[in-house]
């Protein structure tokens, strides 16, 4: 059990910067997910915590100790790899016990620990098999078992579900969450899948181009993104982003999106946005905050008419797309209320959920 801390971590490969100054504090027993697109430095960060990559500058703490120069085996960590990395010539039991055998644990204790881990993972029957006789999901369990038996201070997961098919991935995701609830160990989990990040994490760390854009609970990063990247990365379908101009509208403000569409800023936001009046900004609103307009319009929401371009029924809801000044905008409406493509439809934008982004700094105002 230990906390992990990164202090101004920099990593460059042959002068190409991979990680450009990261600060991160991970509490004891916390489940932290590093998420971001390929090449954002999340795997490199994990590998530096594991000791598989050297740190160019900065300090890594595990517990109270700086581990920069500590070899991986002495960091008391366990890692689960994307492609499982099971030893092909060993049985499941041997795979799981390899680390303990190297550390010369007494045989009865090894057996005991493997049995316990196998029971947690439900792989007791597989202990005598070799990796090639196992399915993808089973191999993944064994890889996790190998980590659990070591009873390490920190678990590191490097995209552990990417090689599984979609259905199994969802199943194993729940499994990992359950296991973390049973074996509460500090966990750092790397993924490019934002759904995995949201569902598993106590806190999500969103990385972009070698830097951390935002750290927060899944709720925070979803509802209060701090940068344009976070706003666009988290959520599916992605947040609608439109160029706009903030204009005076009587005593209030409104967001002018095009000649035919201006939306009033809710009174609660007016004070925050007033200094930006007249400037070109980016308006962001998630698809679920553009819904069908029926009955009374709630406070802070604004109704408007739009000509539907594409209609995508999903069953539970229907995605409607319309174009505002050449930019496609998506709304999520009740299937019963959705119009047909080419028709005009009355929609309501819930502006209490709107975001304004400064296009120069890419920061959310």
């Amino acid at each position, binding site marked *: 059990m230990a906390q992990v801390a990164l202090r101004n971590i920099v990593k460059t490969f042959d002068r190409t910067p991979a990680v450009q100054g990261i600060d991160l504090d991970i509490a004891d027993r916390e489940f932290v997910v590093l998420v971001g697109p390929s090449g954002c430095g999340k795997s490199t960060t994990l590998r530096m915590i594991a000791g598989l990559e050297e740190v160019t500058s900065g300090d890594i703490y595990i517990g109270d100790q700086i581990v920069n120069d500590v070899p991986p*085996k002495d960091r008391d960590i366990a890692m689960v790899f994307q492609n499982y990395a099971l030893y092909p010539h060993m049985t499941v039991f041997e795979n799981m016990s390899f680390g303990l055998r190297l550390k010369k644990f007494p045989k009865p204790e090894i057996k005991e620990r493997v049995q316990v881990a196998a029971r947690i993972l439900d792989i007791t029957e597989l202990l005598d098999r070799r990796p090639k006789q196992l399915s993808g999901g089973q191999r993944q369990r064994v890889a996790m078992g190998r980590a659990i038996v070591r009873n390490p201070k920190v678990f590191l997961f490097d995209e552990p579900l990417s090689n599984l098919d979609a259905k199994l991935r969802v199943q194993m995701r729940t499994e990992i969450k359950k296991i973390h609830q049973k074996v509460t160990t500090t966990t750092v989990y790397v993924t490019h899948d934002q759904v995995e990040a949201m569902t598993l994490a106590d806190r999500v760390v969103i990385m972009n181009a070698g830097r951390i854009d935002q750290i927060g609970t899944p709720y925070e990063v979803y509802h209060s993104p701090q940068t344009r990247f976070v706003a666009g990365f988290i959520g599916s379908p992605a947040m609608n982003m439109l160029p706009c101009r903030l204009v005076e509208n009587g005593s209030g403000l409104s967001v002018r999106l095009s000649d035919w569409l201006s939306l009033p800023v809710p009174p609660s936001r007016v004070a925050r946005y007033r200094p930006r009046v007249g400037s070109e900004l980016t308006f962001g609103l998630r698809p679920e905050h553009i819904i069908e307009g029926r009955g009374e319009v709630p406070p802070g929401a604004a109704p408007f008419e739009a000509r539907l371009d594409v209609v995508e029924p999903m069953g539970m809801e229907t995605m409607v797309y319309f174009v505002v000044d050449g930019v496609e905008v998506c709304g999520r409406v009740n299937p019963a209320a959705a119009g047909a493509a080419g028709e005009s439809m009355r929609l309501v934008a819930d502006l209490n959920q709107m975001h304004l982004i400064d296009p120069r700094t890419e920061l959310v105002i």
Partner: protein
Amino acid sequence: MTTATAEAAPSQGRLVRYSSISRGRRRTLYWSYFFLIVFVIFFLTPPVYMFITSLKSSAEISAATNPWWVYHPTLSNYIDLLTSNQYLIFFRNSALVSVCVVSLTMFISVLAAFSLARMKFWGSATLATGVFLTYLIPDTLLFIPLFKTFAFIHDKTGIELINHWWVLIILLPTLTVPFCTWIMIGYFASIPKELDEAALIDGAGYIQMLTRIFIPVALPGIIAATIFCFTVSWANFLYPLAFTTSADQLTLPVGIVTTLIRGDVYAWGQIMTGALLGAAPPLIIYAFLMDYYIAGLTAGATKG
């Protein structure tokens, strides 16, 4: 596409006969068998001829009878050779040389390949290419400088390195080590990097990583290299010919040729018998190792 061709297509479709997969497969098999039989005849005729000749007496060999048939079979060639002290010494020399060369080569090349494939150090890539280039130098060129070197060592230190069978243990690795290292680099490079990282995290050092992960996983490659190495050292003709001269220091291939050909008299029966008996150990070793040659041992290590 125009309308005309679109309309013509269905009627054409009925005329085209598509061969089924099984028919295509059968035709492929016929051809495979044809070539396999040709190869079998090509490669097995000489040993069969040797075997037939080895069962004949010298008189029958020189007689103008059907060379493919034995009229008076005799084991005298076998008995003569296996009771001849000289032949057994050749055999012993060959066996000792081969076993030592194989052990030495595998020891050097597994360690070399592991370090070249995995421990990225300054110049490791150049060194790996260098190892391969060394292999490209033919032994017919290499033995002259080697001979000169040995003569030089003799002049300076007085150590006699020529005309001893054990000198071959130093000489033959010049041929086997580069090739075996090259094969092993390829094998080790094919082992997923995550496997050593997992071992590293599990607490293995480099030596443990090599002995407990790399060697077992790369066993098919190690066996292939061993077979190659044994063949080279067992069958090498040039080095023993150039570096050994006394009858008691010769290895099998050179020994048979130098002692069983007296002037212009060829003891064909014994030459054939000697060659056949000499070919037996590699054959036995191949047969034995093939059982352990479990291809695809790496399957299941990672996704796939």
